[in-house]
């Protein structure tokens, strides 16, 4: 598969944006600046970046409680995201949703989701809408290994297959559902194995290799667009932080984390871009600096924005 240089640079850009955004959130949460929980995506950047690089703006994604990376990769506005996570009225949900409820339908982002396994039925529904309307779109469902054990996910896989919907199920297998290793919650180890039960292709890729993710998702998206139905792509990866910020991670070893940090997707891809002459060191430094500046502006925007007024509490309440 030939990958354009522009796409290669875009995928690096996305990964670095996610990394810096999450590092700042880690810092701000520890400093007590952020209300509510945050679930960081550090270490998993290649999955979101490789997947969304294979999508068009019109395509849909459903996200998870660990959704910042997905949203950024699909084009989410850093200012509006940061303001929302700060609980400010200028945020995506006017400061009343927080980290786990950010959505931007114009960008095809059908929402992060606080319910584990909540995205599958939404993605299947989006796929059904696409099929019903005859649109040239696909829906991507990001879900974790914990979500793969939820009935909602299995129901979504079943209906997507039974109705031949244009859905790509992107599993982020980071080895743990909250504090529970998959060895304690599943009889099998490869979520891709479950695809055969739904008569759909199931593949495994290195989730820390952005090019491998991009290739697999591109192929899955192409199938979906051609009317060949859903696919399941399992991306083996790891979350560097705990389930949530503040999680002491007593259920896993430092050695395990160290091994995965060695597989950091960002420096390995930066080296590739430099070695292949796609970017010079100077261009890479400028790209990084521009993202850092954009992030700094987003932080300033969030910090200077007002909190929602008490009188606004019941606005936008639908039920």
């Amino acid at each position, binding site marked *: 598969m030939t990958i354009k240089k522009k796409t290669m640079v875009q995928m690096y850009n996305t990964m670095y944006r996610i990394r810096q955004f999450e590092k700042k959130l880690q810092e701000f949460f520890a400093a007590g600046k952020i209300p509510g929980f945050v679930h960081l995506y550090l270490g998993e950047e290649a999955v979101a970046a490789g997947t969304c690089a294979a999508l068009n703006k019109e395509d849909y994604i459903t996200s998870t409680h660990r959704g910042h990376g997905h949203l950024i990769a699909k084009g989410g506005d850093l200012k509006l995201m940061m303001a929302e996570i700060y609980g400010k009225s200028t945020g995506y949900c006017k400061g009343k949703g927080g980290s786990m409820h950010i959505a931007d339908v114009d960008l095809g982002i059908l929402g992060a989701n606080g319910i584990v396994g909540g995205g599958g039925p939404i993605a299947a529904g989006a796929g059904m809408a696409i099929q019903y309307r005859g649109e040239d779109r696909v829906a991507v469902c990001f879900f974790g290994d914990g979500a793969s054990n939820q009935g909602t996910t299995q129901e979504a896989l079943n209906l997507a297959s039974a109705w031949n919907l244009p859905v790509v199920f992107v599993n982020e297998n980071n080895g743990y559902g909250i504090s529970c290793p998959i060895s304690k919650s599943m009889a099998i180890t490869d979520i891709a194995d479950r695809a055969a039960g739904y008569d759909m292709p199931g593949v*495994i890729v290195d989730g820390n290799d952005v090019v491998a993710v991009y290739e697999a998702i591109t192929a899955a998206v192409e199938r979906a667009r051609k009317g060949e139905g859903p696919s399941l792509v399992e991306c083996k990866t790891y979350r560097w932080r705990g389930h949530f910020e503040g999680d002491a991670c007593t259920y896993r070893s430092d050695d395990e984390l160290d091994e995965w940090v060695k597989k950091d997707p960002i420096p390995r891809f930066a080296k590739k871009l430099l070695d292949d002459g796609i970017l010079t060191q100077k261009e890479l430094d400028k790209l990084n600096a521009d993202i850092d500046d954009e992030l700094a502006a987003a932080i300033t925007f969030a910090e200077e924005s007002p909190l929602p007024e008490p009188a606004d509490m019941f606005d936008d309440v639908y039920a």
Partner: protein
Amino acid sequence: MKTVGIIANPISGKDIRRLVAHGSVFDNQEKVRIVRRLLVGLASVGIERVIFMPDYYAIVQRAHKGIHSPIEIASAPMCAENTQEDSTKAARLMVDAGVGCIFVLGGDGTSRAVAKGNAVVPILPLSTGTNNVFPYMIEATVAGLAGGVLTSGQISVEEGCFRSPVLEVLDDDNNLVDIALVDAAVHTDTFVGSKAIWSMKQITQIVLTRCRPDSIGLSAIGGQLHTLTPQEHRGLHLILGPGGKRVLSPIAPGLIEPVDIALEDHLTLGQSIRVDQSPCVIALDGEREVEVKRGAHVHIRFSDRGPWVVDVSKVMALAQQAGIFVQPR
């Protein structure tokens, strides 16, 4: 103690060719069932111990747990890293432990990884991969019988095995970079990515150690023109492009493409091909593996330093002639 090795790759049969072709999802529980049948075959000919490669699915332990086998199992002394190097390392450790045969469950890529760690002990490769040219598509029970009688010394290695040829990828300083058991291809990509190859438009040259008309994968391309068995140690070099023959080939499961062959040439042992194209990626046994940077070159040498491979049909035929499985009533 009569001991064999088992290397079962949990990741085989799940690459991108399920999306870009029509490869089957080969789940790990099926590999467990294959190992169970293998253990039954081995036990029936007196094999006492199995050393296995540890893997994240615990294929051999699950297989052993599910049956009442007299065979003792022990893990090779290593930690699984969940990379192809696990298979290479396990093979080395099994050689050190003195196993009589190494059973390999996977595709061509898994056998290749094992061959990198062992050119001494015979291997018996069983197909659980995608493009399966090197491994056998045979019943594991029979494989257990064949590998077992070989390990027990009832049939000798010289009688029942053959030495596979191999393609050695060398850098400009003649250092060995990697090997291929079946095919090496020059690919226009500059990255390894999801590894598998499926578009012939990006392949410019192919070197084969074997080919036959009923093969699958890149060796099927040569197989439409020639038959080369792994025993005869004769290779084939194809330069793709217009000006020569066009052959219709099954290059992956469910994927058939016309391929233009501009030039073809047979290779003899020791002969090398210099790859001048760079940057490129060298695909080995159907997977992109070696990135060649701009300005660098590699050589692909046809060699006889491959692994010893159990010829299952021959071993079973010799066993028949010797009456090994004929028992007094």
